[in-house]
Each structure stands twice: as structure tokens, then as C-alpha cells.
């Protein structure tokens, strides 16, 4: 069944059926109802790909996800998809698996499939790689920061200030020897976290101990290995600030395996506030990254661009900076219950 069959059955032109599908307000009510009834009866659905060719629009967007196994990315992805679905768009989710070649390949494929826009989460690509989207006039939005991609609209999180607050929290509890375990990616965000951490230590008059700053893969396993390194140190830190909750889970696991009590003998603080951080024992003190909101806003910026492109308006790239907030729970030995209330 195609549009011609519907037109024939209704005794109208193809153009009239097309108007019912695309600009129903321009068709007389009686004609519209008649055609709609036939469409329903014949269970006709328009060919979306062909539609894309005609209208230069496929009602699809691409979403690049660094790693689908990381729950943080799932929450961001849900935010993007929620907005896309509301706009009646389908989202192609591409699992990059931290592989730059895979991300490039996906970008090419999305462009071939004529998506109307692409959202990148902590993209591995630089402006040079991304320009193929610009050449096709496909809007691009960034969520989170990995590399410098200044020319695109971005939703970022103030990781530096959040890391500063998290480190200050450990200092206020009375910890002095504070280690930082950071993931290799996303680069820019983790650099900001290290800056925040160092600033808080300096303000407290504590010299930064470079031995305490260790880089690992951003996984639970990476966290475990990092935790093990701290345990084996001659002078162990009293607290570990991990740049993600996954790393923090690994650190806690390593402590448990070595009979080191968290938080009594070792405080652990994470970053992200993925849902599981409230379920592990002890409940993880962390920094709440507004994950779903990042996704929602990233998608909104993208649809702003798609819509302004349709209207042929120009708009300057927008940047939205979001706040990340300390979420005090039980893994750092904090005594004041009021801190957990707000």
C-alpha cells in the first residue's frame, strides 16, 4: 500500500493525501476525515525514508554514548530520548565504547542516514572530525566536556567547583591525607576536578602529594586497582576522592577485601550520583551531577537548532552551565545529620 493507492481509493489526487499527512489544517474537514478513515482502514504508514528525502527531514536524531555499560550515560541518554520522543523523533543510540574510530564510523553512518541532528556525550572527536556534520548542515550539540569543541552548543557541568566542595567536605570532617583517583576520560572534566581538589588542599595549607594522584580506567575494576595501590602505600591516605561513582565502588570493594572499614579507616567520596550509589554499603557520599537534566537540556538545544534551521534563523551557539551538588551520605564519616537533609 502506498500513497497512490490511498489517493485512488479516496478519489483524490496524491497531493491531497500528502496535504492530509503533512498540513492537515489546509484540507477541508470532510475530505480530511474521509482520507484519514481510508488511511486507518488500510493501515497505511508513510515511508519515513522517502518522506525524509521530500522534506529534508527524517524525524531522527543521533546520540553518541561513550559507553552503554556506564549507568551515568544511561541517565543522560534517557533525558535526550524523553525530549526527542515528545517531539515525535526517534533517537539512534550509538555505543562508542570509548573508541574514537567507532565514534567516527557512527558519525558517518548517522550522516548517511540523514539524521536531523546529533547529540554527543563527552565526545572523543575534535572539531576537525566533526566538520563533516557541519558540511551537511546537521546541527551538533555537546553534553559534557572531553575535548575542546568550542564552536558547538554545549551543556556543561561546573566540575571544578563541585570537586572543590567535595574536597572541602573531606577536610571539614578532619581528613588531611586525601588522595585523588581519576579516570582517563572525560579528559577536560577530570582535569577540572583535579584543579578543584588542589585548590581546596592549598587553601587548607596542605601540600599536594603527587603520589596520591592516580589515573586508572574509568571502571569499577579501575577503582579496585587504584584502591589496592593506596592500601599498599607506606603512608596510606585517609580519604579517596574518586572522579566517578564507578571508581568509588571499586575502591570500596578493594577496602572490603582487605578488611579496611569505610568510612572508619578510609573515607571514600564519588562523583556523578548514579542510582546505585544510594544502594551500596555504606551509602556513597558523592557529587550529584544532574545527569537526566544534562540530557534534557542537550536535546532542547539541539531541537532549538533544528527548528531555527527550518525557519532559516541564525542563532549563536548556546552554552548552559549546570551546577553539581555535594550529596552527603555515609561513606566519609560525616557526623552532622543536617548535611544529609538538603
Amino acid at each position, binding site marked *: 500500500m502506498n500513497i497512490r493507492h490511498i489517493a485512488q481509493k479516496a478519489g483524490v489526487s496524491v497531493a491531497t493525501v500528502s496535504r492530509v499527512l503533512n498540513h492537515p489544517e489546509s484540507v477541508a474537514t470532510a475530505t480530511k476525515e474521509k482520507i484519514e478513515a481510508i488511511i486507518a482502514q488500510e493501515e497505511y504508514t508513510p515511508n519515513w525514508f522517502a518522506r525524509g528525502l521530500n522534506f529534508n527531514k527524517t524525524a531522527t536524531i543521533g546520540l553518541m554514548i561513550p559507553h552503554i555499560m556506564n549507568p551515568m550515560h544511561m541517565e543522560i541518554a534517557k*533525558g535526550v530520548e524523553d*525530549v526527542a520522543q515528545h517531539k515525535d523523533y526517534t533517537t539512534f543510540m550509538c555505543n562508542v565504547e570509548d573508541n574514537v574510530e567507532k565514534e567516527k564510523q557512527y558519525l558517518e553512518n548517522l550522516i548517511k542516514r540523514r539524521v536531523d541532528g546529533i547529540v554527543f556525550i563527552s565526545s572523543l572527536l575534535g572539531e576537525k572530525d566533526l566538520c563533516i556534520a557541519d558540511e551537511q548542515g546537521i546541527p551538533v550539540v555537546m553534553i559534557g566536556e572531553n575535548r575542546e569543541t568550542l564552536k558547538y552548543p554545549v551543556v556543561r557541568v561546573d566540575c571544578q567547583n563541585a570537586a572543590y566542595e567535595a574536597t572541602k567536605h573531606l577536610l571539614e570532617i578532619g581528613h588531611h591525607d586525601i588522595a585523588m583517583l581519576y579516570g582517563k576520560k572525560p579528559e577536560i572534566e577530570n582535569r577540572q576536578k583535579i584543579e578543584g581538589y588542589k585548590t581546596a588542599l592549598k587553601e587548607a595549607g596542605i601540600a599536594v602529594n603527587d603520589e596520591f594522584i592516580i589515573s586508572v580506567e574509568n571502571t569499577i575494576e579501575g577503582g579496585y586497582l587504584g584502591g589496592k595501590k593506596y592500601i599498599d602505600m607506606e603512608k596510606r591516605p585517609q580519604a579517596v576522592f574518586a572522579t566517578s561513582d564507578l571508581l568509588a565502588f571499586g575502591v570500596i570493594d578493594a577496602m572490603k577485601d582487605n578488611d579496611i572499614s569505610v568510612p572508619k579507616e578510609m573515607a571514600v567520596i564519588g562523583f556523578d550520583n548514579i542510582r546505585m550509589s544510594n544502594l551500596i554499603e555504606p551509602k556513597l557520599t558523592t557529587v550529584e551531577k544532574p545527569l537526566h537534566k544534562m540530557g534534557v*537540556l542537550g536535546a532542547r538545544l539541539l531541537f532549538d537548532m533544528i527548528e531555527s534551521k527550518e525557519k532559516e534563523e541564525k542563532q549563536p551557539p548556546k552554552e*548552559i*552551565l549546570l*551546577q553539581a551538588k555535594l550529596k552527603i551520605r555515609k561513606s566519609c564519616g560525616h557526623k552532622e545529620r*543536617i548535611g544529609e*537533609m538538603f
Partner: protein
Amino acid sequence: MTNMLTDFVGLKMKNPFIIAAGPWNRDGSSTKKGLLAGAGAVITETIVSDAMLDVRPRIAYNGFGAQNIRLYSDIQVEGWEHEMDIAKSAGGIVIASVSAHTPSELAYLASKMEKFGADAIEISVSNPAKEGLEVLASNPDVIFDMTREVVSNVRIPVIVKLSQNSTNISRVAKAVQKAGGSAVSAINSVRCILGVDIEKAEPSLPTYGGYSGVPIRPLGLASVATIAQTSDIPICGVGGIDNFRNAVEYMMLGASAVQVGTAVMIHGFERITEMVEQLEEWCDSHGISDVQEIRGKALKNLKSFDEMKIEPAISISDGRPCREGCNECVRSCVYNAIEKTGNEVKAIGDRCTGCGLCTSLCPIKKLHMKW
């Protein structure tokens, strides 16, 4: 006939009553109800970038005031496009209340609401629940940055809702003005725990919330007067307005317009219709030609300790018989200065120090301060 038209930040309202942001304005059709009931404008429930799930229960009332732990609108921004159309479908002024944590997030949200047809923006970063021990709106620098960013991204007026949970509301109001804000609203709900069930050892609601309704009115009145004595920024009075008299009180202390919230939630939207009618009647009966003449009238009677002329006044009865069995003034006089004989009370001149408490307590108001 009194002219009730109120020009507030350029919004031409038919009277000074605005329905405040709150769950009673949770969507387009509930927002429209306030306009149909006769309000000069309505403010949507506070809209955020990412709507959150509600907790249950979330509103409690103890007969005086209400505690509310519903944080924000549960409708996403995309949904508000349609809700704004519904809200505005009967005509009338709709103000969008928005909240966020950073200037860029707030400005983006405000510009969306402007695009959806909002006539003005009310920035509400003064929620006393969840957002932090220190309410965001208690910090003048934060308020300055947020207001300035919103003002430079929208063309409609920007009002900033202030909080009683701040040490110096004057400084915050000045920051709003300096940043180009058009007006302030004062006050938002006040951090509270409504009560404790002593049998179960359980607070009325499971977390800290915002207190609203009649009991917070004196706090709101003081805040409005403070702002009016600080700057000339237009003020919208909010907090515990239950009848038209309360609206007059706020206006006499400097408010150009007033917001009503909890009274609508408890008594229904007809309370607004009543207030509008009764304010007009009162103004008429007092020979007021324009409702804005009331504004600031009581401020000249608000004095510093220094300026108060201390008269040697004592409590004097006007001679009417006391209410049967009433002993209020005698019992409460901390100076032991009132004696009761039969149905008459008398303050003993050298013991009465003129504190005035008995004149407030007397149920038939027969005691007056005189000398």
C-alpha cells in the same frame, strides 16, 4: 468608583491581586481559573529544567498555616508550551515562575517561557526545602548574577521572589535593582516543620518544607516595609493574605500589588473574587479614587525607636461592662496593675507601665491607651 487598574512593571492589571506560584497553578487550566475568578494576573507553579517526581504526602495544614514539600511543577518545559496556551486562552496576564541553579540554566528556561507567551518572569530561587541549608536567594551576589543573566536574555519584565530566610533582605532587593530586575516579590514560604505527632514521634511531613498562610503574614509585612524603606523598586507583597484587609496592609507598607496563594488553596478561587470586590467597596467607602493611593500610606507611621515620642499613657477602660467571666487582662498583666471589681476593670496608675498588652487581649476592646 475607585480606579482599580494597576500598572505593575508595565503589566496592565485590572486590579492589584495576583495568584501566587504554587500547586494551585499546576497547569494551564488551573492557572486559568484564577483569571476567570477575577485576579489581575496569575503566576504558574514554579517551572524547572527537569521536572521531578512528587513525594506523597506533600501538603499539610494545621488550621493556621500550611507546610508544603512539593518542590516544583511536574510538567516538563515541552508540556508548558501547550499549558501556557490554555492558561492564556481566556485572556489575562500570565507570569511564568522559574527556578534553576545557575544563571545560564535560569536564563535559558526564562527565554523558553517568554517564547511560550509568558507576560513576565518571576525568578524563584528562594525555596526553603531541599535546595540547601542556605537559601539561594539569601546571597545578593548570586541573585545579582542570576537576575542580570535573565534580564539580558528576555524582553519581558523580570520579578525576583525573595526569601525571609536571609539575614539582610535589603541587600538582596538592591542587588535585583542593580541587575536590572523590574520588581521583587516578598516573601516566599519560610522553612518549617509544621508539627510533631507526639504519639508516633513523627513530624507532620517527613522533611523540612515551606510554611505559608496566615501565620507568615507578619514576616511578609516586615520584609515588604524593609524593602520599601531601602529602594524604590516595585514590590509585590506575598504571605498570608487571607482577606482584602491583609492586601491593604501590604499595600500600605509599600506593595504595589499582592499575591494570594494558600488562601486560594484552602478556600477556593472564589476567595479571590471576594477580595477583589471587597477591596473595591472599601476603597469606595474611603473616598479613594485610585487604588494605588493606598501604597506606602502606613510607612510614615513606621518609626525608629529614636523617633518614638513616649507618652505617659496607661490602660483606661471605656466603661462598658466586661464580658461575663472574662479575666484575660488581670491574668496576663505582668505588672500586676489591673484590678477587677464586678464587671469593671481598672488599671492602677502607678503600677501600669503602659505596655499595651491588655488592649490587644481584651475580647471586647474596651481598654485603650490614654493619658
